[in-house]
Structures are given as structure tokens and as C-alpha cells.
């Protein structure tokens, strides 16, 4: 009897026993996912005294729901809520678009073209960059002069070095180098980036955050999109090339529509990362460019976390992302299916 519960009768049918267990486990995890979110939702309708009294689970039964927290966030804090909200929207969208655009181009190139930068040339580039940093930072040289001089030096020295170069890097190394940028803990980079934007006069602006997020998320876009591009059959592109189309036309006209699901999936992931980022936003903004995660963290007042206000903020933070995900969900599932599988 027990055996019959678990042994499949047909190849693609699930025996009842397994089905029950499967649904059970999935249901359990659904509970794990939904319960904290549910708790947060009802907390946003609680008064401070309701929270301090102990857990109250069902509105209207255990406690009387009140719109106090919502009122505080939207009316009392009015402009102080809308401003971070708009900032978050603009910053996340623009930085995602930039990252996906630049990253996809780079990923396509890395998937199709074989790069063989000589190690020496790479070393030269790094050396020149370090020289610029040193000159501007401690020599007090003007940035433009430093860049011009080092740029000229770089191009001058490039030819002879390339001619004599022996060892080369491969595409794989380039991709790994990019993803290794994510290893850099933000804590390491945040102060120098702060100083950079300060000297550019871009502190507390949306631009600074857009550039930072786009750069921080570029590696992920390249890493993910590389697999998608690599899985597109080459024949389509080759026939287009023979017909005389430029690389740009091939990329944007032919290949991109083929990997659209992948682009959407990657874009969504990057959007989430930018939308939820906290550390750089904390550093690079004071008043004008504050984003929503800062507002959430700020509800932890010295004299206690304001759970009710916080819940409201978290909910309105999830909302746009959830809506976006729901509208694009067919792409996500299909997108991840198409790529990332062939390695």
C-alpha cells in the first residue's frame, strides 16, 4: 500500500504520496515566505500600543486597525516621503537602463569577438590610471592635465609594447575580472568615491548615484548576459554579416530581440539591486538625493524602532517592484530558461 503511494504508475505521472509531500513542502515554504510579509502588512495598521501589547494577528479581531502610520508617512512627512520615492524611481530606472545597455554591448562583444589584450598593455593602462590618481591626489595637478598627459603617454607607449608582447589575456579572464569587481566591499570604495564626487561637485545629486549604481552593476549584467548571447546560434548572425550588415545593426536589430527575455530578467535583477541599495545612498546623499532605503533605516529612532511607520515604507517600496515583476513575469521565466543553461 505504502509502495503504491510512491511508485509511479506511468512515466510522467506523480504518485499520490509524492504529490502530497511535494505540495506539503511547497506549502510550507509559501507560508515561510508570506508570513513575515503578512505580519508587516498588518503592523502598518497598528498603533504603538498595539505593538507593545504583544502579538495581534488578525485585524478587527485582535486589534483595531488604524491609519495612523499611513497618515504619518504620507501626510505628516508628505514631501519628505515623495522626494525619496521619486529619487529612488529615477535613480533605479536610469542606472538600470545604463547598466543593461553598456553591459549587454560588452557581453555581446565578449561572446562573439576574441579579445587578446596583451598583459603588458593592461599593465600599462593600470599604471597610467594610478599615475593620474597620484598626480591629482597628492601632486595637486589639475585633473584634465593629468588625464591628457597620461593618455598621451599611454598611446605613445602602446604600439611598441604591443609589438613585443608575449602573453595575452583571454575573454574568460576579462569576464572574471569584471565579476571580481563585485568582491570589492563597498566599505572599501565608499570614501574614495565620496571624495571623487565631491571634487566633481556631484555630491547629493541623483547623477552621482546613477553613475555609481550603473558601474557597480555592470559586472553582473555582463556575467549574466554573456551566457544568453553565447547561446544564440551563430548562423543567423553570419548570414547577416555576409549580407553586409554592420555589427551594430546585427546586435541591435537581430540579436537583441532574440535575447529579449534574458535582457528583461537581467534588467529586473539589476533594478532590484539598485532599488534596494543602502550604503552608497547613505554616503553620497544628504538632503536632495535621499532614497527610500535610507528612509526605512531612518525609522529606527533613538528611542525605538517605529515598526508601524517602517512597515508602511517597506510596503510601498515593494509595490512598484512587485507590479513590474508581475507584468514582466512571462519574460523572467522564459528568459532564464533560454540562457544560463548552456554555460
Amino acid at each position: 500500500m505504502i509502495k503504491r503511494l510512491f511508485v509511479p504508475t506511468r512515466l510522467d505521472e506523480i504518485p499520490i504520496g509524492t504529490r502530497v509531500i511535494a505540495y506539503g513542502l511547497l506549502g510550507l515554504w509559501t507560508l515561510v515566505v508570506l508570513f513575515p510579509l503578512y505580519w508587516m502588512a498588518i503592523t502598518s495598521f497598528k498603533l504603538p500600543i498595539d505593538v507593545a501589547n504583544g502579538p495581534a494577528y488578525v485585524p478587527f479581531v485582535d486589534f483595531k486597525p488604524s491609519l495612523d502610520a499611513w497618515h504619518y508617512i504620507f501626510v505628516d512627512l508628505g514631501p519628505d516621503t515623495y522626494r525619496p520615492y521619486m529619487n529612488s524611481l529615477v535613480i533605479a530606472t536610469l542606472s538600470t537602463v545604463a547598466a543593461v545597455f553598456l553591459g549587454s554591448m560588452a557581453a555581446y562583444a565578449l561572446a562573439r569577438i576574441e579579445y587578446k589584450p596583451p598583459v603588458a598593455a593592461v599593465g600599462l593602462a593600470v599604471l597610467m590610471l594610478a599615475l593620474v590618481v597620484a598626480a591629482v591626489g597628492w601632486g595637486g595637478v589639475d585633473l584634465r592635465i593629468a588625464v591628457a598627459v597620461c593618455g598621451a603617454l599611454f598611446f605613445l607607449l602602446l604600439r611598441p609594447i604591443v609589438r613585443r608582447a608575449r602573453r595575452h589575456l583571454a575573454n574568460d579572464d576579462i569576464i572574471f575580472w569584471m565579476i571580481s569587481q563585485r568582491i570589492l566591499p563597498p566599505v572599501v570604495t565608499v570614501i574614495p568615491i565620496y571624495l571623487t564626487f565631491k571634487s566633481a561637485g556631484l555630491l547629493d545629486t541623483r547623477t552621482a548615484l546613477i553613475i555609481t549604481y550603473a558601474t557597480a552593476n555592470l559586472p553582473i549584467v555582463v556575467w549574466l548576459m554573456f551566457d544568453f548571447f553565447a547561446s544564440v546560434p551563430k548562423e543567423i548572425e553570419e548570414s547577416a554579416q555576409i549580407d553586409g550588415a554592420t555589427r551594430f545593426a546585427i546586435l541591435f536589430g537581430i540579436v537583441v530581440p532574440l535575447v529579449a527575455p534574458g535582457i528583461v530578467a537581467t534588467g529586473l535583477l539589476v533594478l532590484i539591486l539598485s532599488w534596494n541599495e543602502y550604503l552608497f545612498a547613505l554616503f553620497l546623499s544628504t538632503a536632495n538625493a535621499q532614497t527610500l532605503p535610507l528612509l526605512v533605516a531612518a525609522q529606527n529612532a533613538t528611542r525605538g524602532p517605529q515598526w508601524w511607520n517602517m512597515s508602511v515604507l517597506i510596503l510601498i517600496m515593494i509595490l512598484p517592484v512587485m507590479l513590474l515583476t508581475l507584468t514582466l513575469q512571462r519574460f523572467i521565466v522564459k528568459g532564464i530558461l533560454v540562457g544560463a543553461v548552456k554555460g
Partner: protein
Amino acid sequence: MKCIKRASVAVAFAVAGFMAAGHALAAGEFQGVTVNVMTFVGPQIAEPLQRRAPEFEKLTGAKINILTVPFSDLYQKLLTDWASGTNSVNAAVFAPQWMVDYTKGGFLEDLSARVARDPALQEDDVMPFFRDFSQRFNGKTYLIALDGDFQMVYYRTDILKQLGKQPPKTWDEYLDIAKAANGKVFGGDGKPVAGSCISKKRNAQAYWAIISIAGGYIQSKGTAQGAFFDPRDFKPLVNNDAFKAALNVYKQSTQYGPPNEINLDVGDTRSAFISGHCALTLDWGDIGVLAIDPKQSKVIDKVGAVMLPGSTKVLNRDTGKLVACDKNTCPYAVDGVNHAPFAAFGGWSGGINAKASPKVKDAAYAFLSYMSQPAQANVDVTIGATGFNPYRRSQFTDMSIWKKSGMSDAAAASYLGAIKASLQSPNMVIDLRIPQNQRYEQVVLDTAVARFLAGELDADATMKAIQTGWDEITDDAGKDAQLKAYKASIGAH
């Protein structure tokens, strides 16, 4: 005749107008000026600023932007903004302890002249302690006091009555009451009560509690004797029998507290107390006003306050041992008990960025003065949500404002009495106000005490860790400079 009459009327108006201008803010005076004021996230402290900003704008035309950041980030956010020359923050409301670090770089505007010219501020009404220690440094006024901070012990009058106990005068009595009350039910919602709720969370505001407890054991001869360091040689006063006794009291109180007390920060203990789940607590002045708020409090009219308990034994600084209290060792003892009220944190005060433009500085000063003037301040200190606690004499003497806020006479007498007793004590402990005080307190002291509570270190190892950590910071900063700054801050010579 008519001419003279008209002239005299005109003169009278002129004189009146001149006098009025000295007191009132001229409408439209700061039209078009925007002031960025930074403080930590509300509602405490930020709420009254945000509430009064539109009023101020109507009065003067200046637009006040209140920028808020989480408390633990405020110190470095202000420093980063000012030290890097970004200067997007024009004024800030912060802890007066940090004034030391900020004036070192010349970031704060000297307000002495402005204050002297401002009768509306009524600076004499501000209690001398706050005037001298919250507003002034090195003889100059840099800040405007908006709040007065003292740690006190609060108790449930009904629970103590039921247990037949008196409000605690020493820490042993405190533990006694906590033990007796812990785990018992005293009505309310039928849940057992915790004997003592003290915030012990790391990296929050818990690290002042240990000084509140230790003060009574360490300092007995007046503020100038110092409670953190010995002003004779700058030796940290944290490695002796007195501090050990305090650590033991601190740890023992955990036994009578809620199970996760180690993870409770001030907000959690506060809400636990006013929702009726604690018999005793150690906190700033907020509980007095929060307890009468019907939206949050279940203990309206059941709360009493008392000055910080003290000790009958005090430290002999040469031997490091405790000696009994007598006329010589404890000249300020009350009934044989040495009390050392602790002005923890000092009280939120407002300062102005020295590099802001003159018009912005004027507008910022006018706003801070407006917030501090009795007409506004005396209302704000009676509202729990503001986080402003009494600091002006008129707030102690004028009972009508408390009555209006809903405090009963008994509650007001107890609450204000405790604060007044603390303020009038000649043996007050001043919070640490030397360069890098943040590191001494928030990093070294807080970490060591947290490890002690977690059981990782015993009392001796904890004291050693604090002393080593403090000595290291002192060596970095220069011992002579620190000693000089310390002596200046406590008024020692």
C-alpha cells in the same frame, strides 16, 4: 499743537516699533533664505523642529529644511560634510559632547555675541548647568540648548506600594525591589512583570547606564573631581573596586529583567515600561511625559521618578578600594548615601556651521533661538513625542504647563522633583567632553560592557579592556592635550 501731537504720536510709534523689533522677529526678514538643519530621525527631536519650521517660515520667510539621518550616523555625517568642505548642512541639532570635536576643526560658529544681543532667548532662564556645559566650551557659546538630559530611575508607584517598599536610594535597594517584583503579576493585563528594565543593547544608547550606576561609587567630592578620569594624572577610573561593584550591579539587574534584555534598546525598554511590563527602569526624562500619553501608556498616574540611586561606599582613588561614606569622603551625601546624578548625553542642542553665508547664519540662529524661547520650549517639553526634556527654570516653576499637558500634581511633583534634585546636586557627573569622546564611550566602553554582559569577559577582564582601550586612544590623541581638555570640561584646576 496738532503738529506736536502728531509728532509725539509718531515718536511713540517709532519707540514702540524699535522695542518691538528687539523682541519679535520681523516678518519677511529672511525671505528667500533656505536653511538646512540636520538632526537625527524623529519623531523625537525632529518632530518639534519639523512642526515649528512652517510657523517660523510664516514669521520670517525663511525656509527651514529638516534633514534627518539615523542617530548612529549623525556624528560622522556632520563631520564628513564639514571637514570635507562640502558644507551642505548649515545648522545641526546634536549632542553637546561632540562640540569638542567640531570646534577643533573650527566648524562651529561662535554664538556668544548673538546670544548676548538676544533678550528674547532669555538665556538666564536656562539652568546654569546646561548653560555652562551644553552651550559653552572654552568660555565661548557655540550651541543653543533645546533639551536637558538626565538619567533617572522610574518606578511603578502601585507596585512599590503593594510590595511595601520605598523608592530606591542605593543600588542595593534597587536590586532588592527588582528581585521582589520580578515575575509577579500586578494586575494590568495579567502578565508577569519584569523587575528591572534597563536598555543593554550594543551600539545603541545603552552605554550610559553603566556610568549612571558607577557614578555614585566613583565620584563624591563634586563635579570637578571627575568620574571618567582622575584629573590629577588622567588615569582612567574604570579599573578599581568601585567600577567592579557597578559592573556587578549591572549584570545582576539582568537577572531580574526581561529575557531578551540584552537586545533591547532604549525605545524597547521605554515602551515596555509604559505598557506596564516593568517595575523599575533607568532612563532619561522621556518616560515622565510618555507615561501620560493615553495613546501609548497603560500606567498613567502610576509612575514616580527619583534621582539616581547612589552608594554608601565610595572609591579611594589612591588605593582603588571602596571606603565607607563619612563627612570627609562624602561631603555631599544625603542621609549617608552619596548620589552622583549623571547628565548623560547633555541634552540636544543646536549649532551653526561657521562656513555658511552670513544671511543663512542669521536665519539659522533666529530659528534656534525661536525653538528655545520659553513660549515654544515650555510647550514642547510637556509633549512626550518631542524628546525635549526640561532645562529652563520656568519649566520647573510653572506648574500650569504640566497641568495643561495632563500630568497630575503628584506625578509632576515627583518627576520635576527628581530632575530638580539632580540639577541642584553639587556632585553631578558631567558626560565626557574631550576630543574623540565618541570612541572612548561608544566604541571601547560599549564593546567591553557588551562582552561582559554576554559572558565573554569577567569583571576584571572587562575593566582591563576598557582601560587598555582608553589608554590607546589617549596615546593617539596626546595625553597632555586630553588632560587639559578634560580638566576644562569638569571645571577642575
